[in-house]
């Protein structure tokens, strides 16, 4: 099934391995990801914090391209890109004047047709249909992930229907269950890692992540699993610092959900580029005889 795909800037740079994994794993689940042409940056939180017009106009250009592509649905793996693009679409649905002002500058106009999907929307669909379990050649026995959603997978600053609980989502747990992994119960699954504060307010971000880290360790997780490139980069890159500053000796790999599905499908660690993590992430999988 062909589906439009918006990777966003992170998946072309700091988490390029997530892009590789998305294409491979979703391909094996029957999705042919068609990257939309000449997309631009969604503006992320920076546009929202700087200029209301740009916060809508930047993702709107991508929506126009996606609408013109003719596909019915577009998958956006990055939680921030997904959130900003969805908010732009909702805003333009209810604001014809703004839509006209933006469309006046676009060669491909926003029509409001394309249905946006997060990576969890897609994966939960495949978990419910049984296809993820069917494709899981290796059951991930012994893997105890703390499913980490972060902020933007469930919370939006306007009314948005989400197919999961805002406070205690279960989508990732469902996918992990289909893989034979035993997701732990914990209290920080939707807490904030600080996002860009890791760069511009590092002490704050490290403190927020220390709470997340402590709870995951205390509850017996042996890794994190996430869908958000910002959460992955932050937790992975700063785990050493968090551990040193807050006295946590454990180091937990921070996997993308696509890495776990890929491993269970029998895709090699090298193909999935699991060596791109800051925290050593291969040994745990080897120790459990998963690779």
């Amino acid at each position, binding site marked *: 099934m062909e589906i439009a795909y918006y990777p966003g800037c992170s998946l*072309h*740079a700091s988490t390029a391995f997530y892009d590789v994994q998305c294409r491979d794993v979703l391909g094996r689940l029957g999705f042919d990801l068609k990257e939309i042409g*000449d997309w631009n940056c969604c503006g992320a939180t920076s546009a929202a914090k700087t200029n209301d017009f740009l916060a809508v106009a*930047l993702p709107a250009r991508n929506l126009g391209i996606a609408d013109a592509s003719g596909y019915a649905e577009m998958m956006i793996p990055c939680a921030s890109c997904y959130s900003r693009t969805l908010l732009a679409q909702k805003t333009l649905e209810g604001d014809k004047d703004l839509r006209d002002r933006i469309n006046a500058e676009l060669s491909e106009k926003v029509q409001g047709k394309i249905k946006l999907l997060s990576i969890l929307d897609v994966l939960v669909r495949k978990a419910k249909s049984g296809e993820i379990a069917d494709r899981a050649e290796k059951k991930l026995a012994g893997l105890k992930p703390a499913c980490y959603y972060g902020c933007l997978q469930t919370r939006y600053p306007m009314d948005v229907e989400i197919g999961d609980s805002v406070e205690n989502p279960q989508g990732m747990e469902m996918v992990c269950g289909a893989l034979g992994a035993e997701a732990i119960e914990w209290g920080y699954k939707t807490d*904030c890692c600080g996002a*860009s*504060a890791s760069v511009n307010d590092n002490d704050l971000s490290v*403190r927020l992540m220390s709470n997340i880290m402590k709870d995951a360790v205390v509850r017996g997780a042996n890794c994190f699993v996430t869908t958000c490139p910002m959460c992955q980069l932050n937790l992975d890159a700063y785990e050493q610092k968090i551990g040193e500053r807050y006295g946590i000796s454990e180091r937990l790999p921070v996997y993308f959900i696509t890495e776990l599905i890929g491993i269970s499908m029998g895709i090699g660690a090298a193909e999935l580029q699991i*060596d791109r993590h*800051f925290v050593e992430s291969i040994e745990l999988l080897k120790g459990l005889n998963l690779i």
Partner: protein
Amino acid sequence: MSSQTLTVETEAAGSLAGEVAARSGQNLNACYQCRRCAAGCPVGDDTGVTPDRLIRMLILGEKEEAMNNLLVWKCVACYTCGTRCPNNIHTARITEALKHMIKEQHLEPMVPKVANFHSAFLTSTSHFGRVNEMEFMGIYEMKNAKNELTKGGGVKAIVDEIKAQMGLGKAMMKLKRIHFSIDRIKGMSEVKRLFSKARK
């Protein structure tokens, strides 16, 4: 109990609250100070001011306090306050609106690095249509250096900051998590038009 009388400049209060409500799309008057937002705010310990306090300042017309507090700058836009608010008030939208107002009025941001970060991010986007992490971080550090030289911690603060970021940069390079090529989109003229419309 203090016997201080609460004085409210009603006209000023109305115009400040009105402007913020209009810009943020949030109904400030719906706040009944239940403080569920405060309980959930992850940065409240650092900022002192929690979302309920900020809304109160705005309603009372305390412009100086509302425009000069750490919540405006340290809000991580996690949207916890808004999803827990029984009256659906999203304070993250309010802190966004206040940042825009501070910028338009050429006031000093309380945490310059945060303002520099978001401005550098958009500048990089306006150059290529996509964010180039190397360029973006370069612009960001130049802005920070300028701040430190004019009113901050001087050369030492600049060196410490750059050292910290270089450490991360080097580690990212080793892990092949930095890309050096420049992705310039073909539709730059459209993106530039959107940027110029945004300035109007």
